[in-house]
């Protein structure tokens, strides 16, 4: 089992009761040596793992992921390195890469599909690739059974949400806030209405992300989504030398 269907199945049948949990880490942050071990640890609790490919200009990211991305680049982390590391391990959890378009484009889209299959990458999230520009990558990925996970935001009109969900596979990424990742602001009260709306329109699972930091955030939206993506908060946990698995446990218990 691999690719879009694998991701979807795992989100529908999470390891622990409640919504599926999708932690995000930046590859090779804070150091490259621990990357594989961190993935093994996360795989015990995570239903899908999202791995950030560091980029020099992460314009959709807040300060935490800017910092982790910068540090990973300093550590010599590249897309090629990430594939080589993933080839060396076997996880029983789907892997999704989050990358800005330029590193993927430079790698080559055909080569990207081959490397993804060889190293067990199931799908992609590309924050600077709206549906207007995504046909080429989407065709390449979906022809091979891999997922291109598209994003919707509270600024997206409902007819556009429909178009986007139709072109998404694996799950639909519902951004909970206007703004960049790891926002300081609490989730707004009407976020549940928006998530319900996305849920109603989407035929594939809906996972919410951006600004989800703790158990109370999870409780607030749990009933309205199929999965939850936790990024900046877990990156900070790892940065401080604390256990990411304990952090994941605390999200649900």
């Amino acid at each position, binding site marked *: 089992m691999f690719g879009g269907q694998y991701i979807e199945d795992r989100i529908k049948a999470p390891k622990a009761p409640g919504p599926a949990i999708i932690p995000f880490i930046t590859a090779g942050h804070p150091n490259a040596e621990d990357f594989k071990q961190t993935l093994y640890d996360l795989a015990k609790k995570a239903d899908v793992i999202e791995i950030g490919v560091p980029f*020099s200009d992460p314009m959709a990211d807040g300060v935490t992921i800017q910092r982790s991305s910068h540090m990973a680049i300093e550590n010599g982390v590249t897309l090629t390195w990430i594939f080589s590391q993933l080839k060396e391990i076997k996880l029983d959890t789907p892997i999704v890469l989050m990358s800005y378009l330029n590193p993927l484009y430079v790698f080559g889209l055909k080569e990207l599909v081959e490397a993804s299959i060889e190293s067990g990458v199931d799908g992609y999230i590309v924050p600077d690739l709206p549906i207007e520009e995504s046909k080429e990558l989407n065709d390449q990925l979906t022809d091979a059974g891999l997922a291109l996970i598209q994003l919707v935001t509270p600024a997206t009109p409902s007819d556009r949400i429909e178009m986007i969900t139709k072109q998404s596979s694996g799950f639909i990424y519902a951004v909970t806030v206007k703004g960049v990742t790891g926002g300081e602001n609490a989730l707004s009260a009407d976020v549940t209405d928006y998530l319900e709306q996305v849920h109603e329109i989407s035929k594939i699972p809906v996972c919410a992300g951006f600004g989800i930091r703790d158990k109370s955030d999870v409780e607030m939206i749990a009933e309205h989504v199929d999965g939850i993506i936790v990024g900046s908060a877990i990156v900070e946990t790892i940065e401080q030398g604390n256990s990411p698995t304990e952090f994941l446990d605390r999200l649900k218990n």
Partner: protein
Amino acid sequence: MRSEDQNLLKALLDGEFPDESGRFGVFGGQYAPETLMPALKKLEKNIKIFLKDKTFQEEFVKELNSWAGRPTALTYAKQLSKRWGVEVFLKREDLTHTGAHKINNALGQAMLAKKLGVKRIVAETGAGQHGVASAAACARVGLPCTVYMGAIDIERQAPNVDRMKQLGTEVISVMSGDQTLRAAIDEAFRDWVSDPENTHYIIGSVVGPHPFPFLVREMQSIIGKEARQQMLNVEESLPDAVFACVGGGSNAIGLFHAFLGDSEVELFGIEAGGTSDDLGENAATLASGKPGILHGTYSMLLHDNDGLIQETHSVSAGLDYPGVGPEHAFLQSINRVKYSSARDDEALELLREVCEYEGILPAIESSHAFVEAKKWAKDNKGKRILIGLSGRGDKDMPTLSKLMHE
């Protein structure tokens, strides 16, 4: 030019580019986060209305003339002409209000933003000229303005920082990334993403996702329209060659556009050659870059084999940018404009020559254009050339003072 290039040029002149997908040939597009897409589509729709709206155009031209100091002069450079053996004409954007061509775009977009009913403006700035222009234009139309500026640029363009503040603008120092123009653009986008309905981002050059490269070009094309007519009035003839410096490329696009259809006029864009041809020591994107995606557009770009954007170097903050407008990449690909680069020391040498012989202090950015013009003149004696003097060099005095006292 090859016939296929001729056809592409004709398509551009006929208004077929940017096309439905926001592209000039293969370059351009809309690689923006989903949060911005509704705002970009709204802007696209409104541009179509307002750029054709007679009342808006009349108001814009009136403001350009009565507030921003247009039309700007065409100056015959007597001494340079004698020294170089060609007839040298200068298009004097340095004479505009706030001292550079940037005001054309800042004023136009601020007026447009006011019509769109947004509540605040964000802008980025490298040399500080676009920041000052945005600050002034926002004060004029009555909108609050926030300008993002790299920490390194804040230091080397100090006079402009205080000018912005004096004009009531909030200046935010960007400590992330390379702390220059590129990081300032990243940060302005991040701000815009957090409130796209109520904020308008006045991008300062012909870069960014569609419709910005088109919008900024339309605001800047007044430069070439005026210059072409002035050449005909004064000389009864067009120039043989036109020179302009290129960072993101807004003054160059603005100057070139009116001449694109004049096949006898050669066009030259000059980028920042920095200190050497090595990656990281210049900002010569068109001369030594590869295609890639940055800040919402597919264009030529300075990036490495992993797709990471490279740091750039130029003595001129305004040219210190690893990307370039997609329309320039297109004009290069169809061989209509020739692009080359000038080194830091060459630009500074020409800056001094223009000061000494014409009594004009050009911006270090603009001085890059003079370098290529002087070289070209050597093999083209007796010809007539036009140089885009995009801005004045007052803002460069901290850099120049340091060099004078070294």
